[in-house]
């Protein structure tokens, strides 16, 4: 293995870590609707309540 191998592996590892962070952060923020609005905090801002819990 040469120096380029280490650099490329480090870059790929960093990309994966960033990707995981973005997925988790987006899931929490609800960016790009996941459809699970009752759990996640909504598409752009907050949609805290589940519609159907409020139905009579």
């Amino acid at each position, binding site marked *: 293995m040469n120096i380029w191998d280490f650099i*490329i592996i480090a870059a790929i590892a960093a990309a994966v870590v960033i990707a995981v962070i*973005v*997925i988790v952060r987006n899931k929490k923020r609800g960016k790009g609707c*996941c*459809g699970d609005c009752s759990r996640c905090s909504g598409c752009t*801002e*907050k949609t805290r309540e*589940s519609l*159907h819990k409020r139905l009579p």
Partner: protein
Amino acid sequence: MKLNELKIGQTAVVKQVGGEGSLRQHFLDMGVIPGAEITLVKYAPMGDPLEVMLHGYKLTLRISEAEKITAELTEHKNTGTDKKTHRKKSKHPGLGEGGRFHPKGSGNPLPEGTKLTFALVGNQNCGKTTLFNQLTGANQHVGNFPGVTVDRKDGAIKGYPDTLVTDLPGIYSMSPYSSEEIVSRNFVLNEKPRAIINIVDATNIERNLYLTMQLLEMDVPMVVALNMMDEMTANGGTVDINRLEELLGVPVVPISAAKNQGIDELVEHAIHVAHYQEKPLRQDYCGGKDHGGTVHRCLHAIAHLIEHHAEDAGLPLRFAAGKVIENDSLLLSQLTLEQNEKEMIEHIVLQMEKERGLDRSAAIADMRFSFISRVCSAAVTKPMRSKESIRSEKIDRILTGKWTAIPMFILIMAAVFFLTFNVIGGTMQEWLKAGIDALSGMTDAALTDANVNKVVHGLLTEGIFAGVGSVLSFLPIIVTLFFFLSLLEDSGYIARVAFFMDKLLRKIGLSGRSIVPLLIGFGCTVPAVMSTRTLPSERDRKMTILLTPFMSCTAKLPIYAFFVDAFFPQYKALIMTGLYTLGILVGILVALLFKGTLFKGEAVPFVMELPNYRLPGARNVLQLLWEKAKDFLTKAFTVILIATIVIWLLQSFDWHFNLVENKGDSILAMAAGLLVPVMAPLGLGDWRICTSLISGFMAKESVVSTMEILFGENAGTVLPVAAASSLLVFSLLYTPCVAAIASIRRELGRKWAAGLIVWQCVIAWTAASIVHLICFLAGGT
């Protein structure tokens, strides 16, 4: 005569509104009340439903619903216009400005730091979300058909961090008809916002003020934002704002949300009334002398009777009294009335019905519209027929014409697909693909020159570049398709499609309103499933949700484009259209099956407002495209990047983590091999294909990237034509992605979501095996 017996162009005065329950209440709330003038505009191309004009706006309803309305022919033409009247200049009441309720600088404000919460309430399609975006700087999507907003959304007003505005789904009254309307009513009743911003469409003020009347009864500080004033004045109409403010007893601010006019003034007034808790000056608008004051006496008598119950339940008294008369079951259950009280109320109401000559709901609706009529004649000069309305009528002669509607729909959709896949999207895709290939080649050469390790080299070129790159190249197609769908939606055409497709959809057990979620399904299943909330019946909602996955979403495009490019390049648009059509046909068959088994019964009534055609806003369209492109790129560099790396690793190593020479010995081959016998009858008995399809459950785009990794450069050519055809059909119909399933689970519950996965896979397997057999018999190998 019945309303459906009118001839086109004839006008009649409503005498009686039949029907029962929430549908009847909905009719009344939409202004179909005894005394209202209704003109028959046209019938849908298939003879049902029909379009009528009342109170200056267009409403659609089915013949079976029109049969419930008794009317009497009149010579008077319901043009919705007023003659110009000269009015005296009114004095500015100055409500919500400081000084009206208290000397400037004094008053009884809420403590500093109290969060000022606002509910943004208004009719459907009156510009709430546009105003919300202007107030908060958010980028919520707006459309031009009723029911774009299906859930509440919050944001702070720009420059006022201690505020929170909630954009609510549009409602026509506080007697909710569909499930998303319940969200709005419950928000105002239960969450007790500090103030309400009531957005009123000035071009359709009579119907919009009906909701305003009910909001005034809530006894919550309120500001009326009179939207689309630019359109109103441009067409020769005027509103005496001062007079309107005086009559309603709340601040009225003329605005144009789309042009960002009057927003600062609106914010000032809203913050003032919320901060000083300045409630409406009047809630009592039941004229004491109207029809002998029968409704007035009934309302006040019941208000006295239920006063302590309303107080205990935390309900505004006047609102509760009105709803008790209307027999609103949701509210009655909150009041916990004793039997004796119920009987007393019933007697009072019966007496009112007898004296007034109208039933309870009609009497209350009539009381409200009578007040609105007085307000409008005092403060509003209706515009001449608007340019937008005349333009819409001309366009509708073709787009919803008897002989032209369906051919135009087919033509428009075919043009959308042709431009997307062949002309615009297809060409841009080729350019992007060429760029990605060049970059991939350069990287490959650079890695070879740098003598990089074989495994790392393979991971980068055969894994990441092949996987992510192949998905990225489909970005132009997806953005182009969303561009056209957005144009159709924003222009108001989709509402027309619902109108003329209603009769067809009823044959498969749905109503015309279901077309909206189904068309959105061609973009993405997740918002499509969410938009089913505009449907007022649980049966229609469930059925529409279960049919949405048959509308092929844009995420499946890369799969189609990939195989069509490889196998049928000369018939690209034809095969693509064929796949979409197949999805629709299978959806229809499934709907017919559901109609006869799981969902017996009739579709919901089709009472819907038809908006005027509008030119789609460039900002709105560009914003949507940017959002979609960003979502796609984020997905490519997150989920798909990780998936490609994991798949490359699994297909490069065996169970002992040794690098394999033959991919058939890899971990992936062993695991996916379990599915091979199941997929073999479809011609897809290859572990690499099974793996690709499994990865598609995470994101449909992954199918192509996985195939690129597993098959290498030959991915498009290794399959026989019959197998490629069955793969296309299987991809079209098998389980939607995990995000769509999550959204279905939220709407219908876990069991339905799990059942849907199995159901879709069974259908996909069956359809794909039929296609495989046909291709095989036809000579394909």
